[in-house]
C-alpha cells in the first residue's frame, strides 16, 4: 500500500497531500474483508443475519458472535473487526441502560443509533485513537414498531449483491418468519464458495413470536431456513 511509510497514515487527524485520511480508508478496508451482515425490517419485525467467516478449524462452533443484544428489544450486527464490534455493543448497552435510568422507559432505536453515531464519529477526530473498523446494523421493535432506519441494510464484503437481492423483496409485506427464510437465502447467495473458507450462518430476530425480545432464531426455523437456502443455491446454479 502506497500510504504506508509516508507518515500520513499514522493518525485520523492528518490529511495526506491529496486530501485523503488513510485511517478512515483502513477502517473501510477492515469492513470489506469481513463476511456480510444484513438487516431486514418487515411488516411485523426485524431480522438480522450474518455470514461469519470461520478463520480456523480450531474455533468452537458459535464462537465470536457478530450479532449481539443491546437491550431486550434491540439487536446489533457488525461487519469488520470483531473486537471493535464488541466495544460498540458494550457502549450501546451502556447508553440503553443510561436512557432507561434517566427516562424510566425503554429506549427507541433512533436515540440509541444517534448516540452510537456520535460515539463512533468521535474516534475519527483525534490522533490518539483510530476509527472503528466496523460497519454496524442496529435493529429493534420499539414503541413505534419495527425499526432499522431502512427497509433493508447490508454491510461487509457482499453488501452490493445483498442490497440488490434485498431490493427485489417486498419487505414491508413479509412476515418476520418469511424474512428469516429470505435472510438465510441471501447470506448463502452472497457467500463466495470458491474464494472463501467455511462460514457459519448467524441469525436473530425480533417479532411477534419472540414477544418483542431480540433473540436468536429458534433451531427448527433456523434449520428450515438454512436447508431452503442451500436448496435455492443449487437450483440457482442450474
Amino acid at each position, binding site marked *: 500500500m502506497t500510504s504506508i511509510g509516508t507518515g500520513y497514515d499514522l493518525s485520523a487527524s492528518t490529511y495526506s497531500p491529496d486530501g485523503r485520511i488513510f485511517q478512515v480508508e483502513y477502517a473501510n478496508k477492515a469492513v470489506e474483508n469481513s463476511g456480510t451482515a444484513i438487516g431486514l425490517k418487515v411488516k411485523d419485525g426485524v431480522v438480522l443475519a450474518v455470514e461469519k467467516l470461520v478463520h480456523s478449524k480450531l474455533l468452537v462452533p458459535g464462537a465470536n458472535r457478530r450479532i*449481539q443484544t443491546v*437491550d431486550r428489544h434491540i439487536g446489533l450486527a457488525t461487519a469488520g473487526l470483531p473486537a471493535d464490534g464488541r466495544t460498540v455493543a458494550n457502549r450501546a448497552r451502556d447508553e440503553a441502560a443510561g436512557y*432507561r435510568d434517566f427516562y424510566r422507559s425503554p429506549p427507541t432505536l433512533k436515540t440509541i443509533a444517534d448516540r452510537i453515531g456520535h460515539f463512533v464519529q468521535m474516534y475519527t477526530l483525534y490522533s490518539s485513537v483510530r476509527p472503528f473498523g466496523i460497519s454496524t446494523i442496529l435493529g429493534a421493535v420499539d414503541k413505534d414498531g419495527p425499526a432499522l432506519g431502512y427497509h433493508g441494510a447490508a454491510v461487509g464484503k457482499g453488501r452490493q449483491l445483498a442490497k440488490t437481492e434485498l431490493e427485489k423483496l417486498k419487505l414491508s409485506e413479509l412476515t418476520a418468519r418469511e424474512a428469516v427464510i429470505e435472510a438465510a437465502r441471501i447470506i448463502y447467495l452472497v457467500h463466495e464458495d470458491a474464494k472463501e473458507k467455511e462460514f457459519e450462518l448467524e441469525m436473530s430476530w425480533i417479532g411477534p413470536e419472540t414477544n418483542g425480545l431480540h433473540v436468536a432464531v429458534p433451531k427448527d426455523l433456523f434449520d428450515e431456513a438454512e436447508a431452503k437456502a442451500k436448496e435455492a443455491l443449487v437450483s440457482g446454479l442450474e
Partner: protein
Amino acid sequence: MDHHPTNWGRPRNDTVDPYGTYPIHQRPTNVPKDAFAAGIQHTQQPIVTGTSVLGIKFKDGIMMAADNLASYGSLARFRDIQRLHPVGEHTVLGAGGDMSDFQYIQGILDELMIDEFAAGDGHTLGPAEVHNYLSELMYARRSKMNPLWNSLLVGGFKDGKRFLAYVDLLGTTYSASTLATGYGSHIAQPLLRRAVEGREDTLTEDEARKILEQSMQVLFYRDARSLDQYQIATITAKGVNISESRKLETSWSFAEGIRGYGAQTQ
C-alpha cells in the same frame, strides 16, 4: 497528611490568614471539599410503607400474597400499589417496608436482568441467584449505615426446584417452607406453619390459595396498616402468575358489641 509546603506549621482549617501570606499562590483548603455531599442524609426511617408479605411452598411451587396498600404513617395513602414484583421468568419479589426503596430495588433488578439477557449465554438468573444478589445488596447498604428499609421475600421455581427465602434491611437471610414479613411474621406465620408444615409436597394450588386467603383475612382484621385488597403470586414450572387485585370477604357485625366502636348501650 498534608504535604503542601504552604501548609507546613499551620493549624488545619484556618479560614483567616493572620500573617497576610496571600498571595503566594492558592493554598489548598483543608475544609470538607463538597458542601453538598455533607448535606446527604442517610435513611433514618421508612416513609411510605407496605405491610406484611406472605409466602408458602406447595406441591407445584411457591405461592405469595401481599395487599395493595402503601401507608403514609397511619394514613392509608395509596390503595393500588403492587407489592409483588416479577423478576425474570422464574422469580417473584415481595416487599414490605419503604416503598421508594422497593422501587429502587426493582430498578436495580431490571438492569441486572437486562445485562444477563444481553450476555446471551443461555443462562438466566433464578430465584436463588436473585435472593443472593439482594442479600449482598442489603448488607452492603446497611454497612454504609444507609440501609434499604425493606423486608423482602423471594419466591420462585426453576429447574424443578422450589425456592422461598427472606432478606431484610440488615442483610439477614433465612429460608423455610412458610415465611412472612412484618406484622405477618407475628400473626400469620403460626397459622401458615400449622397449615403447611409437613404438607409441602401434597398441598394443591387451590388449598394453598385458601390458606393464604385465610391468613390475609386474619391480618386484615388484626393489622391496622393493612387493606382488604391484595394479590396472589403463583410460581410453578409454567412460570410466574400474579393475580389481579382481589377483595377479602369480611364480616364486621361482631364489632357492634365492642365498647368504643358500636353504639353505646350504657
